[in-house]
């Protein structure tokens, strides 16, 4: 069920970095990837790739993360390659379809950008535990407290959702098994029966969710859940390697901005 990009405990420089540093770094890196010129994006991509390999992230994992996007990436690539202005250099006979060189180049760069984004995200999620990332998100949402956004509650809600999502899926599987046991065959049935079975399935899941939510809220209230500042299991401390990383990232960003203005 959970396949690509799931945290597996390991030991390396990146694993030991503070989750806040990693989150911020990936955030800025994503922006840079979208803005950078083609050569820079190409270099960033290759660097990311080697960093991923050095942290024992397998090629298969990256492939799995990319796979669901392939259809969409293909569409975008085709939209660039087929409909861009420019000289046609390959024409498929009979179909009257032609690829322009500039279009293919453009399509290649755009898709390369997306690959970079994915690898960066996989790097973050594979090297930090969900509880760490939640703590980091909470840290960055903290300024919203002044707007009366209940940041601590949001962290609790993410935790709840994280814990209960597999439970909901198990429930769904149970109901599906019950349907099958009563003779429902998802392959042989017609469209109307399929839709009816689906409606029944979601209805049961939703009623189950209501019941569970009521019980959970009652249990939390009974245990004195108070909506206030909360402490976290995942304690975050900046170490020397974090500061080093921040410094490197800062220099990197300054060089990038300088280059950007020099060449534009």
């Amino acid at each position: 069920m959970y396949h690509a990009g799931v945290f597996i405990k390991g030991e390396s420089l990146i694993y030991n970095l503070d989750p806040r540093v990693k989150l911020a770094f990936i955030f800025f890196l994503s922006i840079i990837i979208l803005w950078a010129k083609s050569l820079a994006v190409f270099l960033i991509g290759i660097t990311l790739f080697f960093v991923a390999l050095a942290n024992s992230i397998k090629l298969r994992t990256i492939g799995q993360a990319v796979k669901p996007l392939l259809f969409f990436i293909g569409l975008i690539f085709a939209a660039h390659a087929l409909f861009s202005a420019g000289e046609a250099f390959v024409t498929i006979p009979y179909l009257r379809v032609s690829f322009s060189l500039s279009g293919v180049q453009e399509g290649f760069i755009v898709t390369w950008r997306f690959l970079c984004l994915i690898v960066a995200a996989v790097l973050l999620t594979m090297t930090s535990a969900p509880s760490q990332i939640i703590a980091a998100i909470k840290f960055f949402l903290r300024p919203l407290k002044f707007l009366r956004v209940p940041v601590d509650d949001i962290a609790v809600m993410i935790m709840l959702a994280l814990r209960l999502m597999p439970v909901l899926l198990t429930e769904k599987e149970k109901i599906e098994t019950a349907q099958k046991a009563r003779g429902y065959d998802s392959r042989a049935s017609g469209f109307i029966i399929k839709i009816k079975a689906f409606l029944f399935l979601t209805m049961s899941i939703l009623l189950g969710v209501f019941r569970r939510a009521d019980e959970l809220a009652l249990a939390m209230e009974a245990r004195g859940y108070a909506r206030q500042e909360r402490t976290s299991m995942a304690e975050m401390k900046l170490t020397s390697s974090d500061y080093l990383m921040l410094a490197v990232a800062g220099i990197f960003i300054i060089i990038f901005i300088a280059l950007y203005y020099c060449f534009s």
Partner: protein
Amino acid sequence: MTADKKSIKGIVYAALFGALTAAGAFIVIPLPPVPITAQTFFLNIAAVLLGGPLGAASQFIYVMLGIVGIPVFAGGKAGLGVLFGPTGGYLIGFIVAAFVIGLIAGMKKNAGVLWYIFSMLIGMVIIYFLGVIQLSFVAKLSFVKALYVGVLPFLPGDIIKIILAAIISSRLKDRIKI
């Protein structure tokens, strides 16, 4: 169905609907020719049943689950990069749309299926609008091309999802007490 934003029940319901939307990535609606995932289906139900603010909160939680690294975005994607990627606009759209759908659906007392369908259609337009803007910006496509890539292939499935979601929400609206 104006839920009390401050109650613990509201928190728990929003969290559970966020989890449900996430689980929607693994729940398939059997539509010919291509089965589609049930995510916007649960988005619509959450918005109608929870109302604007809590509905938006539930979708925010869903997006956060994806950032944490659970492969819950359409087709098993996950991670911060998705927000910046070509499909990120849809996710922002989820949050905004849930808020708007909840508001519109709550405007009318004793709203029926048709009113729900109307509110969900407006939500769909919001999702597509934000989605296409980011898509055309990030993928460097013109607005019209982005429409072809980012709206047309998904439109029929989404409309069926809306009809099903409206039916379910009108049946369940009396069962939920926040």
